[in-house]
């Protein structure tokens, strides 16, 4: 089953993304910070990681660098913004860290799904 790991320190956003992605047929797992994200990758081998950038306990850029070093095949969509200062400046670094795509917060549901499908295709049900 196609698995998406959603990494964000805001639970509200994780809940929204879970609903959207599960509604489309993806399996969704969650992490609240960069360290938890790496643990989840080790355990679950997700197909796609959607990761925030400004997070406690290993930020998104550091987490993406570590993920891509250990699991180069994992696709990464970096997200940031939402009124945080300098979020866009940091998001601009994500491709250099290994992110396959970026998306500014806030974003439309359709925009998110388009990026997800572009990166990992339609969900494969297991």
């Amino acid at each position, binding site marked *: 089953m196609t698995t998406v790991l959603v990494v964000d320190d805001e639970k509200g956003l994780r809940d929204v993304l879970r609903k959207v992605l599960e509604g489309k047929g993806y399996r969704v797992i969650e992490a609240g910070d960069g360290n938890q994200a790496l643990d989840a990758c080790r355990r679950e081998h997700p197909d796609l990681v959607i990761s925030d950038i400004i997070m406690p306990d290993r930020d998104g*850029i*550091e987490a993406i660098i570590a993920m891509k070093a250990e699991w180069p095949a994992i696709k990464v969509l970096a997200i940031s913004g939402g009124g945080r*200062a300098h979020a866009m400046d*940091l998001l601009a*670094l994500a491709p250099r*860290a290994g992110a396959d795509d970026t998306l500014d917060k806030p974003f439309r549901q359709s925009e998110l799904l388009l990026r997800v499908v572009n990166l990992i295709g339609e969900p494969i049900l297991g």
Partner: protein
Amino acid sequence: MRDGRDDGKSAFWGQVGALARKLGGTAAPAPPAAQVPPALERRSPPADPLVDFARRVRAVFGDRAAASAGAIYMVNLSKVRQALIAEGRWDRLADRVQNICLQMIRQRLEPADIFHCLPGPIFFIVFARLSLDAAKLKCAAISEEIAQRLIGCDPKFKDVRVAASVAGLSKGDITRDLTYLMAEAEQVMAEGQTGPVVAEEAAPHGAFDNPWLVENREGKAKAAAVNDWYYEAVPECPPDLSFIYLPLWHVKHRAIATFLCLPILPVSASQSLVGDAIFATAPAALLCELDIALLKKVADDLGALLAAGKHAALSLPVHFETLAQSAQRKRYIAVCAALNEGVRRHLAIELVDLPEDAPGGRIAELLSYVRPFARSLSVRITLSQGQFETFGAANVSSVGVALGRENLSESELARRMNHFTKAANQAGLHTYAFELRTRSITTAALGAGFDYISGQMIGSIVDAPNAAYHFEFADLYAGLLA
């Protein structure tokens, strides 16, 4: 020892009696002037180690190089012991705790220094070559290191302290004075008390010229008033004080354009105290000297920088107490007034160590004294302090926090940083944060909107300030990005 020694003894025994009554025992009778009471004889340590230690202390005090002659420094772990007893771990860990302490103290001491260990554990230390101030700082540093090693950031032990204190010894009868000190310490331990008897009673140790004067950390403010006379004769900075600079990132301008000057004090061949670690342990009377030394150093370095055609701002802290005390303020302002216009245009002064309850009007008044001499004024507070309107009214340009000692999770720290910057911005203030230790906390500070930040990801300390230079977001991940 002063003439009033017998009176002091009476006071001492009065306190011992009070303690005995408090514990439900019988008050010890006042001893004859030249007689050690039976209770203490029973509790005194074996004579040989004491006599040997006294002999060595006497030898140190007889050496002209022993600037701290007359003072014996104590590191007291009785509160650590109590915490471990409460957890049922003391019996298992006692030897290990003592060995760790012994190891750390030995590493810190020079060959001529001497120490003696009681099973408190309480350690008596005599520094053979240091001035009183330097010895005091070193003793505080030792206690801090031991606390870090044994307690760390464990929230369970957040109220547990390793106490550092100093007492005086007479040159005439060191053995007797040591007997009293050790007996008192042993009594504390035998009765299951958790700290120095006299410190707990908040009264001076009558048997000695210099009682338990200072307890590290939270006891500092209370002890400072008692302590002033002791340091009056030695207002100079430790002679081996030197200085370093921390780069401060102006985020909006993508530039390291300010360098923060901090004192550095070597306390052993391989270790030094830096910045707040010195300020936090220095006696009140020494703070002004440190502030003036910093100001002179910054003025010199800024003058040299400008003469070389390089431009950067230099920032330095000044303590609330320095400006609050009239005599100290006059001395500080006199140095400020001698600064030339070029230096003033590149100088940023940061008011630090504000009492929690300092009135806004008083803060504004103190800031007004230094405003003519600086390009900008800032105030360092804590994440929980919030007199932002006051600072705004006092023409403060920015408020900031040093996060190194905040014992919070990164997520909680991020939450509080967001709150801090929002409230400060509403009062029209810029914000800064020092001591950002990780990338994630650095990016959290950026996300919270701090205008100026400093920490391990921004740049290492430098010996001398340099011209302003560019620093981009990508530089936070130097060597990691493609």
